[in-house]
């Protein structure tokens, strides 16, 4: 353990100009992602040089850093370090920042990178540095975070790192759960919490709650910014523990759980909580999903003043038009019939032919788009030729790609640099196509096997003979790279990884938005609080059943039945039974419809139908049951009581055992409901007039017939009721046909 380095220099306010006495604020940018999410697009360039709104990610990052008064930047490159070097050589940031490229071919993870950094001895040991994990776009002054860190460290030397967290924002598959002690901002616990597969339980060590912190849990939606303020201890610790790879999974958890170390990690909430995070925007590009989201955010000016028309240094000049449409001022050719719907960006010297439709996309420089082509939510890099009548949806097209006529590119597809697609090719959804063949992790240049026949067949099938490029395996099929003995990264789970792709929707997953809980000082009742913490903590992730469409889980039905059984047998009050049901509905997130169905089903099954039952019998039973329980049914159908009738009809039709016997008595059931005031006359008339009751809801002919059949059984009763009503009012009944029906059917 390195001795705690005393901060000899007092943190002075930064002044501009070169104050030699003060150590410059340093930042380390990890240029390599140490994962393969962008790999198809990164065959000849590193991820940090991918253009977002035609500006390389590294430029955005450097701009964000120099905004934060950073003076010295170390760009830690893995592959393609020569490209990064030459980019930095020619970038205007060289004038304002001291940028150094450090390259290493051996670093395979962020932990490795920090170890090498420690070896290189370039960092100022006295001062903290900013560690940027992935390319960021931010208009936040990170030096505020550094100041806060220094202040914290003045109080307690054991704070070795401050993690930036943001509030709000979108749901992302990589949202951790953090437990924080607010007064000191100290991070207590860190759990990774992938959306899919959901972790049913999260374990928190009990000593968290036994600690002197009296606890209750406030929840915020907080996410990890991937920006850390690190002391020199951090790389040193990485060197000591050679098994630290992932900064979050290994390092943070390692530090937090190690009693011996006694080090602490703090979090810093970026932006103001009160005023809608005060115009600060900090996002990082982690995967193709965030790439798309952030591009649209930038075009919508969330990152203002970082916006395309705000004259990025050395960048292209854009003209902003209505609807967040950015057109480069340099020779863009738009046809009169081109339709543009923002937010979108068109790079310099691009030409769009007639009848092109561009929607929420970015086009790089020197692109041509053929007539009749539609591009939707896609990100096209520089120098791409797109033919006529193509359809591009939610894809990323790499540099220099040539797309022939009539090509369809499906959702989420990634086309690597230099791919060429022949006429009429149809690229399936989420396909990845690279210029070179896919290389797995175990790839060895010696054993370059030839493309086998099957693979070739498949390639030809998809891409056609005119195309150049190779189909890559899908993300989820991709062999897992991280199957080390130390356990794999939950975020790299295939199911979670799919969600990181461009074009995947999260909205159909239920939202488990509770990603952070902080422990705040409880005002009272210390004794009771640990209990509440434990219970709420353990139920947190349970909120996320993924199958909303299929209705509630099986347990709901069994539980509901049991509860009703109890109520029925023990003759509970209706209010109590309703309360119980409601709790159950809430707990299982089941919804009213399901509840009503289950209640009706239960009570209808209580009607005892024998082969020799008479109509009178049935009516009596029905009336009796619903006289007592009708209110319960009604309380679960707030808006439309006709649904009760429809549900009964459905039950009668679909329930094999009970329903069959009740089918013929459907009219009687309705009568019983009417007599017991469960359904009023108007509601029954509504039922009669609704189309669902006549079986319009189904496509199946057979089933429709059954619905109609049952409907016929119920209709006369309603007609009679209506008749009676209108007779009372001395009104003419002009529905002759109803009268006829009534004559023959009424019993």
């Amino acid at each position, binding site marked *: 353990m390195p001795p705690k380095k005393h901060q000899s220099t007092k943190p002075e306010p930064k002044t501009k100009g070169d104050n030699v006495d003060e150590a410059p604020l340093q930042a380390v940018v990890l240029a390599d992602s140490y994962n393969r999410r962008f790999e198809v697009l990164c065959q000849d360039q590193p991820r940090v040089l991918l253009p977002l709104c035609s500006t390389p990610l590294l430029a955005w990052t450097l701009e964000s850093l120099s905004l934060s008064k950073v003076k010295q930047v170390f760009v830690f490159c893995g592959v393609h370090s020569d490209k990064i070097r030459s980019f930095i050589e020619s970038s205007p940031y060289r*004038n*304002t920042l001291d940028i150094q490229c450090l390259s290493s071919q051996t670093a395979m993870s962020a932990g490795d990178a920090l170890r090498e950094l420690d070896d290189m001895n370039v960092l100022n040991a006295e001062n903290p540095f900013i560690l940027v994990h992935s390319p960021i776009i931010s208009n936040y002054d990170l030096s505020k975070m550094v100041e806060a860190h220094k202040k914290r460290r003045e109080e307690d030397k054991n704070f070795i790192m401050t993690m930036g967290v943001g509030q709000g*924002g979108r749901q992302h598959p990589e949202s951790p759960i953090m437990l924080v002690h607010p007064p000191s901002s100290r991070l207590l616990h860190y759990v990774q919490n992938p959306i899919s597969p959901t972790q049913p339980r999260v374990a928190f060590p009990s000593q968290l709650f036994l600690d002197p912190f009296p606890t209750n849990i406030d929840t915020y939606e907080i996410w990890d910014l991937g920006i850390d303020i690190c002391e020199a201890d951090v790389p040193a610790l990485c060197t000591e523990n050679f098994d630290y790879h992932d900064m979050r999974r290994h390092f943070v958890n390692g530090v937090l759980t190690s009693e011996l170390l006694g080090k602490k990690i703090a979090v810093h909430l970026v932006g103001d909580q009160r005023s*809608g*995070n005060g115009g600060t*925007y900090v996002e990082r590009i982690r995967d193709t999903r965030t790439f798309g989201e952030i591009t649209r955010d930038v075009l919508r000016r969330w990152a*203002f*003043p970082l916006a395309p028309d705000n*004259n990025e240094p050395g960048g292209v000049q854009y003209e902003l038009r209505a609807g967040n449409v950015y057109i480069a001022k340099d020779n863009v050719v738009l046809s009169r019939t081109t339709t543009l719907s923002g937010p979108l960006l068109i790079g310099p010297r691009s030409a769009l032919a007639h009848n092109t439709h561009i929607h929420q996309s970015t086009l790089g420089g020197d692109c041509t788009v053929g007539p009749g082509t539609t591009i939707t939510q896609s990100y096209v890099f520089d120098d791409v030729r797109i033919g006529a009548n193509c359809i591009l949806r939610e894809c990323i097209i790499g540099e220099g790609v040539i797309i022939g006529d009539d090509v369809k590119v499906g959702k989420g597809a990634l086309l690597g640099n230099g791919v060429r697609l022949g006429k009429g090719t149809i690229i399936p959804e989420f396909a990845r196509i690279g210029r070179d063949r896919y290389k797995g992790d175990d790839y060895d240049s010696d054993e370059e096997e030839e493309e086998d026949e099957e693979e070739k067949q498949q390639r030809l099938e998809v891409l056609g003979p005119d195309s150049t490029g190779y189909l890559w395996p899908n993300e989820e099929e991709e062999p897992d790279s991280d199957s080390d003995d130390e356990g794999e990264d939950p975020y790299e789970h295939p199911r979670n990884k799919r969600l990181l792709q461009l074009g995947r929707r999260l909205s159909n997953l239920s939202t488990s938005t509770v990603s952070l809980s902080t422990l705040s000082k409880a005002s009272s009742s210390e004794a009771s609080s640990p209990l509440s913490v434990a219970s709420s903590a353990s139920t947190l992730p349970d909120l996320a059943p993924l199958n909303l469409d299929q209705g509630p889980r099986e347990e709901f039905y069994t539980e509901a039945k049991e509860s009703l059984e109890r109520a029925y047998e023990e003759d509970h009050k209706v209010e109590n039974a309703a309360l119980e049901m409601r709790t159950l509905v809430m707990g299982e997130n089941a919804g009213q419809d399901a509840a009503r169905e289950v209640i009706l089903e239960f009570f209808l099954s209580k009607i005892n139908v024998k082969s020799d039952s008479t109509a009178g019998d049935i009516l009596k039973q029905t009336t009796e049951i619903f006289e007592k329980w009708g209110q319960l049914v009604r309380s679960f159908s707030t808006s439309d009581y006709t649904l009760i009738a429809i549900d009964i009809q459905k039950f009668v039709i679909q329930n094999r055992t009970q329903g069959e016997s009740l089918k013929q008595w459907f009219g009687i059931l309705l009568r019983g409901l009417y007599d017991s005031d469960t359904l009023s006359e108007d509601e029954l008339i509504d039922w009669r007039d609704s189309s669902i009751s006549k079986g319009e809801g189904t496509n199946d002919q057979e089933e429709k017939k059954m619905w109609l059949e049952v409907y016929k059984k119920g209709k006369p009763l309603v007609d009679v009721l209506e008749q009676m009503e209108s007779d009372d009012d001395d009104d003419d009944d002009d529905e002759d046909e109803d009268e006829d029906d009534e004559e023959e059917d009424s019993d």
Partner: protein
Amino acid sequence: MAASASLKSNDPNARLTEALCTSLRRRQIVGSLNVALATAALIQNIVRSARYSTIDELLALIKSVGRRLIDANPKELAAGNIVRRILRLIREEYRAAAAAHIVSAPGSAPETPYLGPTTPGISAPLNHYLNLSSNTSSSASEFNFFSPSSSGGGSHGPLIRQTSLSNFVAMRHSRAQLERSGSLVDLQLSQSTNNLFTRNNSSNGYPPETPGVSSITPNYNTSKIDSEEFMKQSSKLKPVLIQAIDEVVGELETTHEDVAKGAKEHIHSSEIILTMGHSKTVEAFLKQGYRDRKFTVVVAESAPSYLGHSLAQSLSSSGIPTILIPDSSIHAILPRITKVILGAHTVLANGGLFALSGSLACALAAKSHSKPLVIVTGQFKFAPAWNLYHDFAAVDFQSPSKLFSSSSSTGKDSTEIINPYYDYIRPELVQLFVTNEGDHSPSYIYRLIKEAYDEEDVEL
């Protein structure tokens, strides 16, 4: 002429320029006055420390810096205005100094004869320069304006032209303009220097076409002054130039007070005045006015910046009865208002202006209720831009986060949020501009702008 001049990358001035550009681009310096002051400080620094051998080079250098500043944030037109103003001052000072140099030259330089009164081209203008204020019919200006072909003295020019009154008015105008733009002096100078030049080439004839070219620039002349001679001059000139810029800075710093001086002429007792935003000029104006008159101020809160809140606080803390209203009530409260006073971000040559968003709503409401709209502003905000067709982005769209908290994840993608910072107010909505140098109607603004800047600087 400007292309060659740019700062070396290792020059400290280049760093300062870069720093100012960056902070303009990042919106770390906002507000016309702040931008203007920062620009003036930067230019002063450049004048003080940059290396230049001719005045030309200096002007080109300043121009290139000005261009960069404008590029860095095209919406802050004040930067360009200040650069133009300083350019003009430098030219004036230079001409004055150069003329003085030439006048004093007979004594100082050993070879005097060519500057003597025998030279026909120079005597009259020189004389004219010295008696500039009294001399109404200047031979040089007529000369410049009317007769490109007339050679040398041009003493017969005015005589021909002064016959008609309309001509006389036209001449007055052109003369006034020339005087302002300095080309009067310029012309004399060109003649003198040309003489100097021609003497060196041992040619006595005066080229007849030269004086007629109205757009003679100092560069043309000064390039002919040999650098040695200029260096002597420039060492003397530098403090003068710096002093001139100091004056500009001083003028900027006292803008608010100067504007506010007229407050009591414009505000009557027991008026109810509507304003919005937090313009420092308006604040000073109202506070000054309250010393003499008692009135009430209604402040619209000016969402989404809510600058109205701080203005209301500031006004009420100095005892002015203040009412804060939401923007939505502007139209409703207007019948009770007697006058609308707004600040400006930039005033354009057509008399239109950019002001904080919401100002247009105020202006239109005032128009529909026939209440006077008074704009109070310093003249440094007058920009030589004709914004009859202003481009869409000119109203400076900001981040939507002010309107819409991004903490709710839904809606960020589905809603298009438009948050302009400025409104463009058409000239016909404005009744009066109250500036630090008098009150003007919108239709007169172009004139002030024409007088304030040299024409060649309009495009930096």
